[in-house]
């Protein structure tokens, strides 16, 4: 589904991603972790064209992604993204947040879009919030709406950028639960997170990044018990200490 080869990305003179190679297959769940500023967000933002790489190849679902590519809008409809800050549309109700994409982008009828939307609201366990505005929801509920919004586009790949790090502790689990259920449906997922419990439960590949490079790619058993790199070990110790 996602094939990254030799990818490099610069912000001006700052080398944000260095020679990244990564392959994600259909149905695979990849969890990316690493210290702050290591380029995790930058990488997954490249995956749906919110950032552009400067060289190398990035092929998603058979479509080559590059700046100005025509197919980029089609691609984005296949690749959903959930942000740390939810980014719900505050002027629309929850239901409208979910239907606006299908209706305006996919040109699906309102009735049908609403049906799908209610379906996915059920899936994220908040069917009763359909007519509220985002500001009236808790953070956890908002994040679940954001997940449902992506799902409504019938995406085949979901990207998550620290979906729980802006949440209060009580709400983290509501969101993680939904994500675990989602993983069980066989969705392809790339998740940036520091929730190692979640990673253990769901991931089939762990990726560790540092300073714009991928330092380690390994299955979770190995990653957590016996990481090959020293930095990774240090990082895990720090995280798991808390």
């Amino acid at each position, binding site marked *: 589904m996602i094939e990254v*080869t*030799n*990818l*490099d990305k*610069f912000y*001006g*003179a700052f*080398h944000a991603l*260095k*020679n990244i190679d990564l392959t994600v297959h259909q149905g695979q769940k990849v969890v990316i972790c690493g210290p702050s500023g290591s380029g995790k967000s930058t990488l997954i933002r490249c995956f749906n064209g919110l950032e552009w*790489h*400067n*060289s*190398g*190849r990035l092929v998603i679902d058979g479509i*080559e992604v*590059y*700046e*100005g*590519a025509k197919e980029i809008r089609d691609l984005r409809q296949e690749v959903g993204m959930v942000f740390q800050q939810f980014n719900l549309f505050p002027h629309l109700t929850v239901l409208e947040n979910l239907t606006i994409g299908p209706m305006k982008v996919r040109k699906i009828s309102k009735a049908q879009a609403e049906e799908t939307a209610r379906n996915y609201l059920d899936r994220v366990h908040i069917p009763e919030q359909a007519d509220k505005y985002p500001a009236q929801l808790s953070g956890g509920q908002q994040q679940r709406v954001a997940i449902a919004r992506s799902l409504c586009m019938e995406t085949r790949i979901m990207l998550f950028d620290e979906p729980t790090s802006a949440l209060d502790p009580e709400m983290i689990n509501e969101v993680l639960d939904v994500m675990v259920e989602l993983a069980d449906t066989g969705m392809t997922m790339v998740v940036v997170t520091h929730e190692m419990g979640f990673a253990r439960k769901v991931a089939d590949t762990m990726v560790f990044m540092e300073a714009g490079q991928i330092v380690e790619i390994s299955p979770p058993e190995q990653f957590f018990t016996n990481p090959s790199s020293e930095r990774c070990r240090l990082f895990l110790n720090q995280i798991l200490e808390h």
Partner: protein
Amino acid sequence: MSDLGISGPKGQPLPKPPVYKRFFDSVPVSIAIYTIVVGLIAYGSYAGAQGMGYNWQWYRVPQFLYRNTEIGFEWGEIPIGLVATIKLSVTAFLLATFLGLLVALLRLSGLVVGSAVAIGYLELIRNIPLLVLLYLFYYVLGPIFGFDRYTASILTLAVFHSALISEILRAGINAIPTGQWEAAKSIGMSPYQTYRYIILPQSVRFMLPPMTGEVVHLIKSSAIVSVIAVAELTTFGRNIISDTYMSFEIWFTIALVYLVVTLILSIGVSHLEKKYAVDQ
């Protein structure tokens, strides 16, 4: 990695965006298109005016900028008018700042009548057009207090802008945290001392950029005093037009002079704004 930054990537080169897009997005092309469009507009208006039977007489304009007479070099009406405009604006601005400070302090004083008067003044001034205010000052208050057109125009501008300035000052003063007031009080300072040594020195930084913007605004408003024949740039312009009937040439010249002056000031303002934004 190479130390040349961008030239460093090792991967294959990317497919390039379409040629037309790169072409239109590049800076020199953008500037060229921009120049062409502006040129077309300028030419269009030139030709349009000519088409309606107007004879452009730009060659008659320089005499109003400067003259070389037997006596020697001599400034024309337009530079003289510009100097008058600047003089008028500066005087009015100083007065407006003083009035504005008075109103802002009254408003903040907590005095019952004081703040009511300040608010009444503000609302009154803010809801009457400048032109009407000018007529009021000149035709109504002028004879009563016996001031001439120059005083009337300065007062009008000062009063009108004092309302705006007082809001700027008030915002600047309110931007200072209450802790500063309390600290000053707790070392025994009087309200006057607190303003003088603690509040005003700190709020100047908040006020400086909008106040400079207000100078630009005032220079623009000053053009309106031409309706009561006060000697300044627009008045001279209108007088020249009534003598020569070269409306278009003179109006464009005048506009250009204002544009240059206020642009210089505006650029200064944005520099100030940037400087203080970094400081914060």
